[in-house]
């Protein structure tokens, strides 16, 4: 390697910005300052998501190994309802779509009305999802599906409610962002906040698709 050479330092800001641009939603020229500050923070959030994905991945793997551990207790066919799981899936998919609309409004619109509208719709869909999920858990509990009953149910209740907790956290974050939007307006931290929450929201959607396919469809097939 020619490491002894003295490297002349050139720093072309626009070139660098082009080079370091990461895949994902870029805010566009109307948001010049955020364009630069968001880079590190959003990248950091992606990395955090990778770490979180390991947690879900391991819980999925654990769940699969525990499928046989019902210990004579109720199994998937006695506990799950396809209808409500399907409704939950649709709600969450729709919420991902509406968050996408919010992101587009953030990128292309000067006014905040559309952004707030889509964010509120997303929030309502998220809350509706949680409502149906809690209703599901309630039915399961009524049918004897409690985590202390068997290893299988323990694995279920360590995986699915963790996703629900994440959605709850994301909803609280969304409420906080709406509050910040009202108080501070659309400033840099709020913008990067929305960008990061969008990543989390779509991530949770993907995890749910895993849960729906593996836990519900797999369990009922």
């Amino acid at each position, binding site marked *: 390697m020619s490491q002894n050479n003295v*490297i002349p330092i050139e720093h072309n800001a626009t070139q660098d910005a082009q080079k*370091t641009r990461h895949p994902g939603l870029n805010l566009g020229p109307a948001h010049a300052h955020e364009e630069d500050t968001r880079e*590190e923070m959003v*990248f950091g959030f992606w990395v955090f998501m990778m770490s979180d994905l390991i947690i879900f991945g391991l819980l999925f793997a654990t769940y699969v190994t525990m499928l046989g551990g019902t210990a004579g207790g109720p199994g998937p066919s006695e506990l799950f309802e396809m209808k409500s799981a399907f409704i939950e899936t649709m709600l969450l998919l729709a919420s991902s779509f509406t968050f996408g609309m919010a992101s587009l409004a953030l990128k292309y619109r000067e006014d905040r009305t559309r952004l707030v509208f889509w964010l509120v719709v997303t929030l309502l869909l998220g809350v509706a999802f949680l409502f149906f999920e809690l209703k599901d858990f309630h039915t399961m509990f009524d049918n004897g599906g409690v985590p202390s*009953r*068997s290893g299988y*149910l*323990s694995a279920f209740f360590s995986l699915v409610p963790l996703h629900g907790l994440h959605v709850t956290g994301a909803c609280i974050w969304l409420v906080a962002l709406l509050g910040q939007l009202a108080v501070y307006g659309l400033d840099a931290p709020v913008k990067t906040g929305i960008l990061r929450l969008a990543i989390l929201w779509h991530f949770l959607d993907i995890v749910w698709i895993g849960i729906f396919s593996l836990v519900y469809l797999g369990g009922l097939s």
Partner: protein
Amino acid sequence: MSDAMSSIFGRLGWDALPFWSMLHDHSPMTLINGVIATGAAGMVVLGALAAIVLVSWLGKWKYLWSEWLTSPDHKKIGIMFIVIALVMLARAIIEAVFMRAQQAVGLDGGFLTAEHFGELFTTHGTIMVFFMAMPFLTGIINYVMPLQIGARDLSFPVLNQVSLGLTAAGAALVMISLVLAPFSTGGWTGYPPFTELSYNPGAGVDYWIWAVTLSTLSSTLTGINFAVTIFKKRAPGMKLFRMPLFTWTALCTAILMIFGMPPLTVATGLLALDRYLDFHMFTTDLGGNMMNYVNLFWAFGHPEVYILILPPFGIFSEVFATFSGKRIYGYKILVIATMCIAVLSFTVWLHHFFTMGQSAHINAAFGIATMLIGIPTGVKVYDWMLTMYRGRIRLSVPMVYAIGFIMLFVLGGMTGIILATPSVDYQIHNSLFLVAHFHNMLIPGLLFGMLSATNFWFPKAFGFRLEERWGYRAAFCWIIGFMLAFFPLYVLGLMGMPRRSVAYFEPQYLPWTIMAGIGALVILCALLCLLLQLWVSIRDRHANNVFVGDPLGWPDAGMVGLLTAAGIQLPGAARDLQH
């Protein structure tokens, strides 16, 4: 009333006090163990009090609060991480000496109860891994890495503070457990079902779960912080393949932290659900499966050992180059080897439990994968040797540690290859051979690396050098003490002595356990030498000042030399920033 008490204290009762059992049972065994436990608790309380009195006497509370505890500066946070590590190192070494003393007189008994001995090896392991090694390397990377890449701070300074707080809280829990309630007796791995509520109803395992989980979260966040900093905050011109090797190993360690720490979070989290909410993840009844815990734990545990060893590899790369007066040999190969090790570290976790029921084919696959790691590691060893070859070697304190490392670490690597053979592992697993092996990797590897780095970069941090005479004494005590304490354990392991034995009935073990006990005392001397070195250095700090008439501060041989070696010429302004 009792409801209110139990909601506050949970599983803690009066018997949580270390002298409680002594008051009720006057048998000599209880008395001796009670006195030791009370002495330890007294040291914790007195140590805390002494620190409070000292800070008050110096009138430094405001300074401590505003300049250190609330500082987001990566250099100060790094130093605070290292302070935690040194305090915990002192405690864990003392515990190790007690364990060695117990086994030296452990023929047909000894002076410690089995419970007490169990707590000792559990806290010793937990502390050394989570509260000595992790904060030590986190501290060194925190301090050095941003300087090496020309960044003003880490990407997320507040997150860095959070990481420090989480580690400090975990360490505090382990310390408190000396005063209130016994600690877990489940070893640093905390395998269920032994750690389940049905076998361990006390607060000990809860201490362990909380302490370890806090430390794990801290390391996950730290890993994210380091990786983002290295990817996004390098100075202009600092291309990836111009980074100093220490920064490379910091990057690999950060990646391992991001992917390797979550499995432990899952394992301890599920164990906590078992204990608190009556789940059955790892219980022996109702469909629980303890093997899931073992797999999850080692899915963390094996990347963890490379989290521990890669930063020292980076440090030694810097030390060998600096004190041989040469550029590092095979920079690119060393980077590739580091990356290979990082990737392979995720493919070998099963070798920690060859004997736990897999088929021979699976064992063979993991045994081969394990041996493969020896290749990139061997490449590194040759690169370091070739760096020294025909160099102008100066036997400074960091270099003594480095040479001690390279000799002893290769021996440890050889015994690792032996253990990686499943059929051999069946004979010697869970014996002292294993204990000798991983101490052989971690003491010359991790600890020598950390002490080498401390001696190497101390002047950078504080403006004066560490005193060399006590430094040499500490280094030689460590090397000799290590050999005396752990080489006998290889023999004992081959003779069949199981690890974690409080007592034994084979007179043939005795000479070896006594030799190991003497080694432990030499290591205790090494600890004292380290403390004296620090004391003497601070006392004579004006004589050892490194700011002597150079307008740039001091010609920073370590840092600037390495930057130049990597082909980077920092402009004047950026160079000033580094000082």
